[in-house]
């Protein structure tokens, strides 16, 4: 874009008729400028509008459920758009928007969950059997991610204990291991070495049998969106979110503590228990506070400056679950 001022733009040898009339070249310049501005505008428009992802999300089929007031927090619910577009589900990519973008390829029917291991009655349940096992309940739980943010989500499902009782755990069973589907064809993230696939999570048997532990089939009165762990997942509201395994294909009762995915990847950062605990920091950040997603006006300046809130022990479920850990040093068993 340099300009040579000492050069004469035209000399005597150019015929007057060859010179473009001023009006014409000015018009050309205007057209060029408009074309450039138009091209820039067209390129920049999507960059200036990030709404598309939330607007695109199709709603799932309705799922009839009866509200369970005993397990319903009265806090403001996180908007459906946020619950379904801000997810950690690495099988579909590590960006929070990746699951909503890429989980459309997940086939949730037919789907079976094999319940096996140290049980008297091992069984494989198909999705319809799980949906009809007992009447569905709606429960509104707080969800606290280990990364320092939280949501309030109305889930649909029933206590995992209902399922576990039916397969009759043996006396030797001490833990429950959950395995998530890991299919490269349906899950683009499984091709990247972020974690050792499949994703495995685990609970102690008494944690798994606790009435708060929810076998989950829906949210906001609809079947689970794929990005939220369709068609069936668990929700353990007093533990960090990653303990709540998604898109489960196998539930196995075992006698040894399962080697869980995040514990294996970074044992110093993610313990087997991973109970929400403001007194035990993550090695790289504090867990004392959390950012509630969807506070303030959604996604604008008010949301940007919304204050954080204090994180509660066991995510506010201390009364219900603290007895499970009586006598345990929770700083050691983080």
């Amino acid at each position, binding site marked *: 874009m340099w300009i040579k001022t000492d050069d004469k733009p035209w000399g005597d040898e150019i015929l007057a008729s060859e010179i473009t009339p001023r009006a014409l070249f000015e018009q050309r310049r205007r057209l060029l400028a408009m074309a450039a501005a138009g091209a820039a505008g067209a390129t920049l428009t999507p960059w200036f509008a990030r709404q598309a992802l939330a607007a695109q999300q199709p709603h799932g089929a309705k799922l009839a459920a009866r509200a369970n007031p005993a397990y319903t927090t009265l806090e403001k619910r996180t908007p459906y758009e946020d619950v379904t577009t801000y997810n950690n589900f690495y099988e579909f990519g*590590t960006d929070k928007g990746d699951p909503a973008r890429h989980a459309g390829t997940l086939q949730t029917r037919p789907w079976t969950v094999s319940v096996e291991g140290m049980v008297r009655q091992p069984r494989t349940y198909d999705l319809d059997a799980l949906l009809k096992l007992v009447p569905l309940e709606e429960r509104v739980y707080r969800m606290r991610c280990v990364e320092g943010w939280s949501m309030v989500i109305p889930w649909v499902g029933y206590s995992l204990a209902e399922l576990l009782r039916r397969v009759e755990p043996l006396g030797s069973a001490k833990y429950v291991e959950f395995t998530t589907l890991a299919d490269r064809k349906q899950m683009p993230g499984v091709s990247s070495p972020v974690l050792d696939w499949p994703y495995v999570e685990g609970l102690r048997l008494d944690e798994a049998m606790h009435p708060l532990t929810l076998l989950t089939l829906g949210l906001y009165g609809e079947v689970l969106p794929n990005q939220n762990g369709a068609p069936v997942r668990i929700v353990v509201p007093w533990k960090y979110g990653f303990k709540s395994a998604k898109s489960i294909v196998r539930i196995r009762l075992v006698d040894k503590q399962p080697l869980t995915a995040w514990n294996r*990847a970074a044992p110093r950062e993610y313990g087997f228990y991973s109970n929400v605990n403001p007194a035990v920091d993550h090695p790289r950040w*504090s867990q004392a506070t959390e950012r509630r997603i969807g506070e303030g006006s959604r*996604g604008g300046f008010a949301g*940007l400056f919304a204050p954080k809130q204090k994180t509660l022990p066991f995510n506010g479920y201390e009364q219900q679950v603290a007895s499970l850990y009586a006598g345990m040093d929770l700083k050691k068993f983080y």
Partner: protein
Amino acid sequence: MRTTPAPMLTSAGLRRLKVLVWLLALLPLARLVWLGTQDGFGANPLEFVTRSTGTWALVLLCVTLAITPLRHWSGAHWLVRLRRLLGLFAFFYACLHMLLWFVVDQGLDPSAMLADVIKRPFITAGFTAFVLMTVLAVTSPHAVVRRLGGRRWQALHRSVYAVAVLAILHYWWHKAGKNDFSEVAIYAAVVAVLLGARIVRAWRRRAQAVKPPGRAGGSSGSDGAGGSGAGGANDGDRSDSIAV
């Protein structure tokens, strides 16, 4: 390497270029302001805006670091006239990035901030880079260059290399928690190329310097040593003394 004379830039041309740099460099900010009014920050506004400003600080830092290699490669010495502006824009986005962390995330609490700097290595790296950038921004006016003297100023401003390495480290460690280096690897490669170009050039110049004097003149007129006489080359030499 260069055989054609360096292209010149008139002051009017420079002014127009600077206006263009201003417009382009302010686009990311304009976008954020627009998204803020349209509720377009998504589910986690602080995370989104912090990442956006951090990304643009790094992009502009890379553009700033690209000026000198581009200048040597193309012979377009006027590029150096844009370097300070670009560097200051990189600092501007780094300021926004840092202020969001300090004001919104840490709630303006210096002890919380200090604890975060100590506890989280990726913040230690980012914070150090920011402190260094502040020193560079403060010493960027021409008056300060004159006061410090070209050599000292240049030595000081070489710390922009440390800023780049720290910024990559900051980003790398941030992504380490998720084992996801796909994006940060691209920035790391860009910074490696930009710093590598300087190392290669320094080696070449050293190799040239140790050659016997009779030979050195014969090898395809490398710039710098000897001075080729033309006004354009002088200009280049002068700006070489403050090249970073």
